[in-house]
């Protein structure tokens, strides 16, 4: 039990007539880097939002770090770090001010906050940019800052929704290095992505199509289940099926 970080059972979300996520059942283990893969509209973002307490499930339930997202969404929020698809930090605050603010909002004060901000700043190497407005950062730096803000409270579970969209290859590689460092220290990471090379770097993957779970397993297993030689084949097969 203690090794299951995210336990999803029969999770369903409807928006009116549209079913965005349909009866999804998944278990993500502690310390795993777990990828959610699927074309646009496959339900990746909706799933993540339900898991961090931003959307209420229509049916089914899920626990994150042992907490029921339906019963205690606010307690779940203390246990997860979240990076949304769109840059969600304050562009009119500096890097340092954003970190201070989120440190404070996660309940850190005084010396404890300074210490945690210091650790995160060093981990992500943003020390030289503390005084720069977040809005003036490039995509790669924005993404690092967003990850930093999501890590301040040392969450056991991290949800990253397309964290590397619009980021250059070098910055993406650094980012993934950081993700694996975190996982090694026991953080569970659930990440959605469009990039096949990134999907290959996940321990396990779940492939979604129109809200349904299509395949689950290691990257080669998933490719095989969908019927492609590589993951990329599998993805394209799926996308063509969805659009057709």
């Amino acid at each position, binding site marked *: 039990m203690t090794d299951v970080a995210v336990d999803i059972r029969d999770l369903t979300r409807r*928006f009116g007539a549209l079913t965005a996520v349909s009866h999804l059942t998944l278990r993500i283990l502690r310390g795993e880097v777990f990828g959610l893969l699927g074309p646009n509209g496959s339900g990746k973002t909706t799933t993540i*939002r339900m898991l*961090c*307490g*931003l*959307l*209420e499930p229509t049916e089914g339930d899920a626990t994150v770090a042992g907490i029921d997202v339906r019963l205690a*969404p*606010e*307690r779940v*929020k*203390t246990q*997860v770090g*979240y990076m*949304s698809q*769109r*840059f*969600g*930090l*304050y*562009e*009119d*605050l500096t890097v340092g*001010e954003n970190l*201070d*603010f*989120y*440190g*404070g*909002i*996660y*309940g850190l*004060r005084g010396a404890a906050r300074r210490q945690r901000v210091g650790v995160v700043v060093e981990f992500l190497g943003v020390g030289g940019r503390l005084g720069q407005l977040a809005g003036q950062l490039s995509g790669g730096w924005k993404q690092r800052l*967003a990850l930093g*803000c999501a890590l301040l409270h040392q969450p056991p579970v991290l949800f990253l929704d397309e964290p590397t969209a619009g980021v250059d290859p070098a910055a993406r590689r650094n980012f993934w290095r950081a993700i694996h460092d975190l996982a090694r220290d026991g953080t569970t990471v659930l990440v959605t992505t469009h990039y096949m090379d990134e999907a290959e770097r996940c321990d396990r993957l779940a492939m979604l199509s129109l809200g349904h779970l299509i395949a689950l397993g290691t990257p080669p297993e998933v490719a095989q289940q969908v019927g492609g030689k590589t993951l990329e084949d599998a993805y394209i097969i799926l996308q063509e099926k969805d659009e057709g």
Partner: protein
Amino acid sequence: MRRFWPMVRKEFIQMRRDRLTLGIMFGIPVVQLLMFGYAIQTDVRHIPTVVVDASRTPESRAIIQALENTGNFRIVAYADDRGTLDDAIARGRAQAGIVVPYDYARNLGRGSTASFQVIVDASDPLSSQSALAAAAGVAQVRNLELLAALAGRSTLPLDARIRPRYNPGLRSPTYIVPGLVGLILTMTMVLITAVAIVRERERGTLEQLIVTPISRTELMLGKITPYVGVGLFQMTAVLLLGRFVFDVPLVGSIGLLYAVSLLFIVASLSLGLFISTLVKTQQQAMQLSFFFMLPSILLSGFMFPREAMPVAFQWISLLIPLTHFLKILRGILLKGVGIGPIAPQILILCGFAVGLIALAVRRFHKTLD
């Protein structure tokens, strides 16, 4: 409430960086005050007047002079006939006319009724009112003098001594400036917080914020707190300008005034937050704020006396916080009353402040749907 202060700090930094909004917030009190203080005068005086004096006697000149002396009529032209006078009023060159018929002095001398005519353009009732009253007054005074002379008396039998208290000069600024404190606070405070939540939603920062454990109350109170300071600053600016530029006497307790104003500021900010939870875009937030502002200006008693409104509107106006705040403002600033006479209004404002915050917190959900 440990997440409250980080929220306040963040709002404060953002407010400081948003130079345009800041400029508008600090500029509005000054511009509004000068506009209302100088341009808007409800006591209309010196209206352009055309005179037709067919009598051309010392008596006729005396009555024309008496009318001019009231300060309500400013003679711009003398005409020979009625036609010219009517034409001048129709074209808007004049707003009033005085006609003294050829037999004026003769009738006066004979002891029969002499008449003169005062024509006022009443298409704008506000500007014609005082002219009409002045004309009637002039006739009455002349009548009394003539009657007293006939009766052989040098003094009048009756004398009403009227004392206009609290605003002896019946000046507009004295009446307008205290109300302006309330109007400016309503306009800026409601609008500023009305866009507060939707702006975060539109910029994409709300999602990141509500995925944290911050409570709804911490979020809401943190959002409004920095603007309480802005409100107090605006109020101070209006009072200082009112005192030193427009000579408005500020007689009451300033401490009491600030304490009560704090309630009104919080109520207005909370109303804005409530609006913010009702709408999807900043544009809708602004429209809804203006929808609320118009009745605040028209029904609260800021410009038009509530006593003159139909009963139904008087009741509606009680739902507007400004209505109650105006009573407090005028009570403290002009009459110098203490807490006693305005206690009911203070309680009502408390109710508005607490109720509106509760409503905003209740309406706001930390989810995306």
